[in-house]
């Protein structure tokens, strides 16, 4: 089973997205047993608001079909990076699809790209990196938190992605990346990206791209200053993107009828025009949406003069 290679039927070992509603969906690993809180293996049952079920019942079901629960139903969906990002277990703050999309796009990634990422965090972006560089590229991802690195490695294995990713436990500020192949892209999501710039210069190939994700403008300022000081980065730009998810609803606004004169208007009051005429379909923005995620900075590495 793999996030990338699609199979129409659910098999044991798959990760399935159980979709109850827009704001209510969960990733489920289809196994006979799961670890409980005290670390013992118990039968894998899954609890939902519509009752619980034995996870092994999912085996043999078709992706994209209805799955009946004791008091209702849900859809079973094939995992994608986007669904995973929405449902994954948070070990850290994660990067979401709008930012992920811009990062991958701005880094000009494609199959065959060699990418370095620090830190791994919860692996939200890593999944999308792997999907893009597959099947001929590779992701090297590092985290200074040993347990997090181990958990990410385990997840990639379960998601059938391990052939295209190497997870390292490493503090890249002190130790650098130690990736032998020159990288097409380096992505940094860590508190002090400017301290990693010398390591980035050693790891990127000529024309390779760096991207940093920082929530604070002070971080961006320091990073850009470090990049300019190095004298080897060009086309430095900083961007931010926010996505608004609108809902589509019908609304009725009462229209008052001024065409009737007082005599016609039986009650002597203003009369609304027929309701159906006042109905319209519209976009309703969410009551609250993200106001800031992070600043995304891109730069292109061009050391010295090329040999040609």
């Amino acid at each position, binding site marked *: 089973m793999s996030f990338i290679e699609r199979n*129409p039927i659910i098999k044991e070992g798959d990760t399935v997205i159980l979709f109850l509603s827009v704001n209510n969906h969960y990733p489920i690993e289809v196994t006979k047993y799961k670890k409980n809180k005290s670390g013992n293996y118990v039968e894998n049952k899954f609890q939902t608001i519509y009752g619980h079920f034995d996870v092994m019942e999912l085996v043999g079901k078709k992706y*994209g079909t209805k799955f009946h629960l004791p008091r209702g139903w849900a859809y079973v969906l094939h995992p994608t990076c986007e669904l995973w990002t929405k449902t994954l277990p948070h070990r850290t703050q994660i990067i979401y699809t709008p930012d992920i999309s811009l990062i991958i796009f701005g880094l000009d990634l494609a199959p065959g790209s060699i990418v370095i990422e620090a830190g791994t965090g919860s692996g939200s972006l890593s999944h999308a990196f792997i999907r893009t560089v597959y099947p001929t590229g590779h992701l090297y991802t590092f985290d200074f938190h040993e347990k997090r690195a181990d958990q990410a490695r385990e997840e990639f294995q379960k998601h059938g992605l391990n052939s295209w990713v190497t997870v390292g436990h490493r503090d890249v500020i002190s130790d650098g990346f130690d990736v032998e192949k020159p990288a097409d892209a380096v992505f940094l999501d860590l508190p002090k990206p400017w301290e990693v710039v010398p390591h980035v210069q050693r790891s990127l190939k000529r024309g390779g791209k760096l991207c940093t994700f920082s929530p604070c403008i002070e971080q961006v300022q320091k990073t850009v200053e470090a990049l300019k000081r190095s004298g080897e980065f060009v086309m430095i730009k900083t961007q931010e993107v926010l996505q608004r998810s609108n809902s589509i609803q019908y609304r009725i606004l009462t229209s008052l009828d001024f065409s009737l004169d007082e005599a016609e208007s039986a009650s002597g009051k203003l009369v609304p025009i027929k309701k159906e005429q006042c109905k319209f379909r519209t976009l309703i923005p969410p009551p609250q949406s993200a106001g800031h995620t992070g600043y995304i900075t891109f730069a292109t590495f061009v050391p010295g003069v*090329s040999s040609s």
Partner: protein
Amino acid sequence: MASETNSNEDLVTSSSATAAVGGLGADEDGICDGKYVVVERGDQQRIILFKSNQTITFGKGATQQDILLKGASGTGFLNAFKASPAPPEVIASHKPSSNNSKPWKKSKVRPQNLFVLERSTDPIVKSINEFYQLPDTISSGVDNRNIHDDNTSQAMKKHDIESLRGQGVSSKEILETIITSSKSFNQKTEFAQEKYLKKKEKIYGDVLVFRKPSISILSDYYFKRDPVKVLGLRPDTLSQLLSYANIHAHGKYLIFENCCGLIVAAVLNRLGGHGAALHCHIGSNPQRQALVCMNFTDEDLKPMMNLDMLYLLRGNVEKMEVGPDDIAAVAVVEAESSEEPKTKKQKLECDAGSDSDDEKNGKDSYNEQSEVEEETTFVTSRRLMASNNKEDNETSVAYFNETEFDGLIICGKEHPLTLLQRLLPRLALSTPFVIYCQYPEPLMDCYVWVKEKGIGINVHLVDNWFRNIQVETERTHPEINMSPSGGYLLYGTYIVGT
């Protein structure tokens, strides 16, 4: 390298070999005739079909530069080149090929406008920054309290500048003369001086950088220069479209697009030669202006198939999973679009990158000249030359009918609903569909249809806010201008209907 561009086939087969012969790095492919390249001078950007015997024009009037491209031929990307006035022997030997260009456009090629390119020996950053190095005699002020806008500051007049140019003085030297003969420049603050230089770089900049075209560059370029052509699709929206459609190598995708071929190009780029991209379009001339700019190899183009939507109408109707009403609607779309004059379509076909813009502005001699020959001489691949004929379409129809696709993208000028109705049933279960539209209303129609049929889940209608930030020491702030809309996306997952 240039000698190998005699025929299209040579060009395709030898492109990887040439890189090695030309002394470029193993991974680095370089600038040569018949390839699209991005040319940057300061903030100005052009995407051109490179031909070493032609010029590229920046600026106009007294400061116009017709820069001979020869000096860049055979070099790698991301080097700095300095444009300097052409020496007399070059001027003498240069025969402007403007005779070929349209007679109603009088190309004013003046010898003092002719520049040559020379590879800078300095690192690229140094070359670019050099423009901002002021002469030592220049100091700067604290604020603008003593600066008055009374037109007396500048002693240089227009004819003075022209006479300097006539003497073959370099742009940078002319700018320095202008600065030193200004009474107020010394009183400007350091920041104001830099801002002034930034403005002047557009006119007097003399450093050119060549870059390899990429989807992000193309998307940005089209959106800035001609958003109508790409239906207002902003780069951030395109980036999300690719994510939500779950584009990856070995996937099989169904794409309806008439957005300059930008979407198809982006999908092909993400497929890396593995998988399938069935490009559905109306008429026999799919849009490919952006696609050709990517210099795709035959290998890269292998996943691409074309399908004239007309064949979905005439094809096996009994196999269709849509009602007769839907088919009728598709027919209307077809009829409307075929009313477009044929000549316009053909022009779009051969008009790549910046051409039409420059034509409008009438300032790029390079493109005027190239446009004529482009179609006949420099089509980058045999695959792209193949006409979209009946046989191809029938192969595509068969493929369309037998394939369960891994994703659907709709991005076109037409109302997306009937397209969605016709194409969505070809998806495998639990795969994504993404529709782009510049306006939200058509997407609402699609949303309502999908929900009524119960064949979509996780359906969202989103739009984006996207901003560039200027980051400079003590001057960091969002850029003064931003794009207020990048279009709307409707995305969701296809599921079995109720």
